[in-house]
């Protein structure tokens, strides 16, 4: 069996943090547990309280441990941490400043409600400036698909049209 090495880079720290969290989820949990959490962390404005708890109880401590060890390092120093999960591993290289920001992605900002989280997302997905572009795309779609597309753009939750959204009650930090 061969080795597979994947190197992922991005200049946006939010994207790097998201990629690291998605990979840690995939490596730490079994596929049936990790998959729905990854899906909603990646695409949805809301997650379930259970999902956030999984993230805070299992993934956050991995990052907090690193932050504790590097407290005395200079802010711009590049620091690397490698986690091993059986035959697989993940190595994350960030500046000390970027490491210290990672735990913040696991906290819902104070006062951020579900409606506000969805509105922040909709400010892009339903931007008035882009209405004509969106209408142009909807024009070529089947009627029921238009309703589905608009539902996803409006409520920001990646689920089949008829699925209950009741469990997803926490803003995705």
């Amino acid at each position, binding site marked *: *069996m*061969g*080795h*597979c*090495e*994947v*190197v*992922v*880079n*991005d*200049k*946006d720290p*939010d*994207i790097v943090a*998201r990629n690291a969290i998605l990979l840690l989820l995939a490596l730490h949990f079994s596929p049936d547990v990790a998959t729905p959490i990854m899906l909603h962390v*990646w*695409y949805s404005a809301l997650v379930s309280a259970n999902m956030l708890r999984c993230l805070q109880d299992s993934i956050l401590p991995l990052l907090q441990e690193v932050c504790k060890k590097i407290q005395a390092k200079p802010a711009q120093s590049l620091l690397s941490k490698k986690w091993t999960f059986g035959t*697989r*591993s993940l190595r994350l290289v960030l500046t000390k400043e970027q490491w210290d920001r990672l735990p913040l992605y696991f906290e819902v900002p104070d006062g951020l409600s579900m409606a506000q989280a969805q509105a*922040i997302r909709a*400010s*892009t*997905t339903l*931007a*008035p*400036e*882009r*209405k*004509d*572009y969106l*209408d*142009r795309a*909807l*024009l070529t779609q*089947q*009627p*029921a698909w*238009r*309703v*589905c597309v*608009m*539902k996803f753009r409006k409520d920001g939750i990646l689920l*089949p*049209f*008829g699925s209950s959204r009741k469990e997803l009650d926490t803003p995705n930090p």
Partner: protein
Amino acid sequence: MHPATKDPHVWEWLHMHAKAVCWFKLVRLIFTFPYIDRTILQYCGKSCQQAHWSIHKGDCKSPLMKITWRPSWVLEAREPAFIGTEESPFVDMVSYGRQKYLWGNVPAIDLLNLQQNEGVDFTEDLRLLFAGTRHSTRLCPLLIPNQPLEI
């Protein structure tokens, strides 16, 4: 007909628990698009369908569901925003929403696609590079085979 279904209690049970679909949508779709998957919303029974109607009717009766739906620029009798004018043929870039490109413009896809490429029994080493930028059209997976690595 099976003798059991002559029993009114059995028939009522069957009726309650048979999958109910949104018939309005189903009828519309049968006559307009005969080859697509028609049911995007199913219920476990009539009572659930009725209970959900006050929420669902907003979607079911949406103008988007009509074959006659037209985009805003047609209804408002104006040029669409993506068409330039004679004075300014090139459409200006407009800033909107949050300046974040969380998903880029390429959906999540299997770039490696071993089944179609090297084959699922491929056992050699693989190295993939996603150099990354803000626009996913510039994501370039770089495949360098045959280099054994320590991970």
